[in-house]
């Protein structure tokens, strides 16, 4: 079974600064997908960014970027120029390519607080 670990329960960052969230996972699979989801106080689950394991290039979406280290099984999220609206829980998630139903395995989450 796959496991996803987020070792930082909570992080705070000043507005306009950069914060990096860590995520490690355990799998014997070679083909898979990784995601970061954001959950603001409104409770919605919002996709932030995705990474396909077969792609060496790190994914980027505006102020959000990842550092994907396949050999180390690490998938960190960097939030640049942090904004107050980035305050939320962030969940790392893993999905096997060949598993029926493309089920997601979530980490326990990291709470990010952006301070003005």
């Amino acid at each position, binding site marked *: 079974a796959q496991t996803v670990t987020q070792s930082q329960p909570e992080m705070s960052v000043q507005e306009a600064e950069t914060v990096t969230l860590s995520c490690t996972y355990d799998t014997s699979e070679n083909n898979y997908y990784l995601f970061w989801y954001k959950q603001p106080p409104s*409770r919605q689950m919002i996709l932030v960014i995705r990474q396909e394991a077969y792609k060496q290039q790190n994914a980027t979406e505006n102020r959000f970027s990842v550092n994907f280290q396949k050999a180390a099984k690490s998938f960190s999220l960097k939030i640049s120029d942090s904004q107050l609206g980035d305050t939320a829980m962030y969940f790392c998630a893993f999905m096997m390519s060949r598993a029926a139903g493309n089920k997601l395995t979530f980490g*326990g989450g990291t709470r990010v607080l952006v301070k003005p």
Partner: protein
Amino acid sequence: NAGVTQTPKFRVLKTGQSMTLLCAQDMNHEYMYWYRQDPGMGLRLIHYSVGEGTTAKGEVPDGYNVSRLKKQNFLLGLESAAPSQTSVYFCASSRPYQPQHFGDGTRLSIL
């Protein structure tokens, strides 16, 4: 665009009562999922479906049943609610190999 709609948004039950949570999606997605989220934790998969008429167990299926009689709907049932089932329930849907789209969640309290 409605996306994924969950009904109801809040519910309080007494121990032993039954209820059904409804999830509807208008994106013609093949796959649908039910998760629960307990305080301070990530989402855990209860049951999922890869198509109309099919269902399968996830990580925490005990005490729940599901049905997918129509492609756009996925029902989650609690036959005899227990306090341990107090949680926030999320429904999601997706196409194969694509990110899941989530509903806004249902907060369920069982007294």
